């Protein structure tokens, strides 16, 4: 199993290299280093100061390969950029000039406070509803539930949020309509509504998926055997089917866990939660390329981490991999 994991880890390296190449190429198409310099130096930039800025950051070097005499071949923008990314030197924001490492570190906690509970609440709700549908399968409630799930999927995310903010927060005064404060348990009142909305947003798709998984499980032979032995419908469903279905589920959801750090673009922006999602929306609107491309890199790493976690889960479940 150890060898297997090492292999999977090694496989992630070329992919990460590819991501760096894509983001590097895109970031140069987007904006030449000269215009980035002008943006940072502000309205007082002179050709001299732009030059100095570029030199300071090594952006006056060749793009990919340094073919100049007595210069190291790899002393180029791309490879230096690569080296910095490997050591997590993400650079500074184009707009605020703040260190991006710090920006991401600060934003991670508020983001996780929203996405993590939303993820688990959404999961619990979706599993319960899917089980419920399987429980009452082929009844009116089941078909209504299926249509409702598709309907939930077809509503744009913004509409959920606008509704939640305008009605639940404003008309009923249950929750703050906006804002965030990290103050122990006091934070709860800020995250409850966003968490609830986020959980509902993903519900439709999840219920559909989980229902399909459970239905597949219920068609298996062991279920029929158990039924024949007189196991009650409820016990069959909640013990046997749930247990076996969960194995399929866990491998499916583990991959998403690391990405939760990135937060939620829309929810954080609407509710003024200072997480990474909010930072990113702002960066996109302001054209802050440094932040956007650092997020691309970060997102890719988190995604790959998710894949490796999934592999570990598979390995734990499947003895063939564990023993190899």
């Amino acid at each position: 199993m150890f060898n297997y994991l090492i292999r999977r880890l090694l496989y992630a390296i070329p992919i990460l290299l590819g991501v760096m190449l894509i983001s590097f190429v895109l970031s140069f198409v987007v904006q030449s280093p000269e215009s980035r310099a002008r943006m940072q130096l502000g309205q007082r930039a002179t050709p001299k100061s732009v030059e100095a800025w570029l030199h300071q950051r090594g952006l006056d070097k060749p793009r990919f390969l340094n073919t100049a005499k007595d210069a190291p071949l790899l002393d180029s923008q791309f490879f230096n950029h690569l080296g910095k990314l490997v050591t997590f030197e993400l650079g500074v924001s184009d707009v605020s000039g703040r260190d991006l490492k710090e920006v991401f570190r600060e934003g991670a906690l508020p983001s996780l406070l929203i996405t993590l509970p939303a993820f688990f609440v959404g999961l619990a709700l979706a599993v319960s509803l899917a089980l419920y549908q399987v429980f009452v399968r082929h009844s009116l409630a089941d078909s209504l539930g299926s249509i409702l799930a598709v309907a939930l999927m077809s509503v744009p995310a913004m509409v959920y949020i606008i509704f939640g903010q305008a009605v639940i927060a404003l008309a009923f005064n249950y929750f703050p309509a906006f804002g965030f404060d990290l103050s122990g348990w006091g934070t709860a009142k800020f995250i409850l509504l966003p968490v609830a909305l986020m959980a509902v947003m993903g519900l439709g798709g999840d219920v559909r998926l989980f229902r399909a998984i459970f239905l597949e499980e219920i068609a298996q032979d062991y279920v029929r055997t158990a039924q024949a032995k007189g196991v009650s419908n409820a016990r069959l469903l909640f013990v046997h089917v749930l247990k076996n279905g969960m194995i399929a589920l866990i491998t499916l959801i583990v991959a998403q866990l690391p990405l939760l750090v990135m937060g939620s673009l829309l929810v954080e922006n609407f509710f003024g939660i200072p997480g990474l999602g909010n930072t990113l929306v702002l960066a996109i609107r302001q054209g802050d390329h440094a932040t956007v491309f650092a997020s691309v890199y970060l997102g890719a790493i988190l995604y790959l981490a998710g894949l490796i976690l999934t592999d570990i889960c598979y390995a734990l479940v499947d003895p063939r991999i564990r023993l190899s």
Partner: protein
Amino acid sequence: MDLIASFQRVLGLSLGLVFLAGCGNDPNPRPLRQTRPDGSPWLVRYSGMPDEPRSLDPQVAYDQMSRRILEPVVETLLEYHPFKTDPYEVVPVLLSEMPRRELQADGSVSYLCKLKPGIFFVDDPCFPGGKGRELVAADVYYAFQRICDPKVGCPVFGNLAEYIKGMSQLYEGAKKNGDQLDYSQKLSGLEVIDSHTFKLHLLKPYPQIIYWLAMHFTAPVAREAVDYYDGQPHPDGPGGRERVRPKFAWHPVATGPFVLHEYRPGHLIRLARNERYQTTVFPEGGWTPDREPLLRPFAGKNLPLVDEVLFTVFREELPIVLLSRQGYLDGMGVGKDAFNSFVTPSLKLDQKYASRGMSLEKDVDLGTFYMSLNMQDPVLGPNPKLRQALSCAHDTQAGIDIFRNGVPPVAQQLIAPGIFGFQPGFRNPYGFNLEKARQLMVEAGYPGGRDPKTGRPLELTMDVTATGAQERQVAEFNQRQFQQLGIQVKIVENTFARMLEKEDQGNFQIASGTGWGADYPDPENFFFLFYGKNFPPEGKNISRYRNAEFDRLFEQMATMENSPERLEIVRRMNAILAEDCPVILEMNKAFYVVVQPFAPRTQNNTLLEGGLKYAWIDHPLREQKRRDWNPVPLWPLGAGAVLMIGAVFYSVRWNRRLDV
């Protein structure tokens, strides 16, 4: 079945938790304290801003958001009187009296300034022993040196260097030395006489220098703070651990009434009272008689009146309106979209809000918005008739009606109302008039908007920064205005940074969304926008307008004291600009402000961003109103519970049928 039961238990528990934590919808973070040392309530003012500051370095900050935070923290040598706005009056703050104008033997002008004794910087680790030291003239000298430092990048260096001795030399010297300014070099324009006295030597007469001393660019800076807050790791942490100090730009150390207590980028800014502040007190008079009952009780009181100010960054309009209605925000302008809900046809506050004790005030900002036309463009530049036609085709009033509820006035001239040289009766000769616009198109050589050479419609591009929904609508509106002439207008959307770059390079035809807010109440501060030596990137002449007569008059009026002759020159310059149409004038900024009953406005001088020290809050009234305005209905919860019970019931019944 016990699984279902435990599921229900979990559900019940989580619902209970929701109610426990959900008590109260107050979105504001907890204040630093509940009571003052003497037992009276700790007063907090909750405020908002639409964007975050770009820099809190007094020599660098130039945008309104930065000023809003910086000016309460960094006190200036002089300051606008909070109540006297017609005409504006400048009063001493850090100085003990107004600067004394002296005529030197060689005919040049100097100003003698004396600092008040006994003003201390806030306590900060950058000072020995952490105790703030006394403010001295050397701090002013250091601030002026920083203005000349190319590395600092002061945006108004050019304006000041033109009038103050020795600044250009210092700057040029540093430029030659690889942008390194040698701080031991002397700045001849600022002479330190003793610890509290200094003299400012000018190259030529410049009465407006008084206004510059009321801006934060000339605010004194402690060299210790700049050296200490370098953004590098130092062994300051507990046990000598390495810790990164913030940069000076994000950690101002000054003498103002407030201290920057907390800054969470993109989210909130917390200012707290400077416990050592004694520099100013609430003025004893100067207000209009109708404000007497409100302001008299404060006369002579120590400042600031509140202990803490909390700025939340709101990037959307919706939460501002929501929180104001709930009483969680103490002051706000009426946004375009919320306008109708607050205002009745007679422009009075709607009864619904008036009965809550709110009131409505109109604010007029010293600013003018316009669309810039590129004078170096081969199509627009040499064709004044075409520019005039475009100006005539733009129905500015309609735009104001749609997007600003008809509140701001259409700008008839560049200079904003309330500033010397503003001519109340003046009408823009190329204001909206579609017939005239079509006629002008014929004279411009494009009858019906068509280029006779090609027979096809004239094509122009308009550069906009369109990120929000409203900006997109404005762009589409402007496009339609010009297309009434039969020409084609292509919209190019830019990011804010890209737009600035295009303005700097002159790489545009029509740039929408440009304008100017006054730095100080003088026509020179508007006309320099069209001075021929003020081209970007150094200057602000985005249109790249050059007119020999205009430049000559500008140089003449810039250094004059206000007088009938100066007024006459301003009038002539105004006429030249109006005829040449380097811009399409849109409007002067004006808006309504809804005033909460518990947060009466103690001052509304638009030039005074640092007026926060005069702000006040009626704490008990606010507590009461918040309770009244936030009732919590319970029926939706009941309805939800009924639905859930129904679902459980249904499923149990269905299960029984299956089992049978």
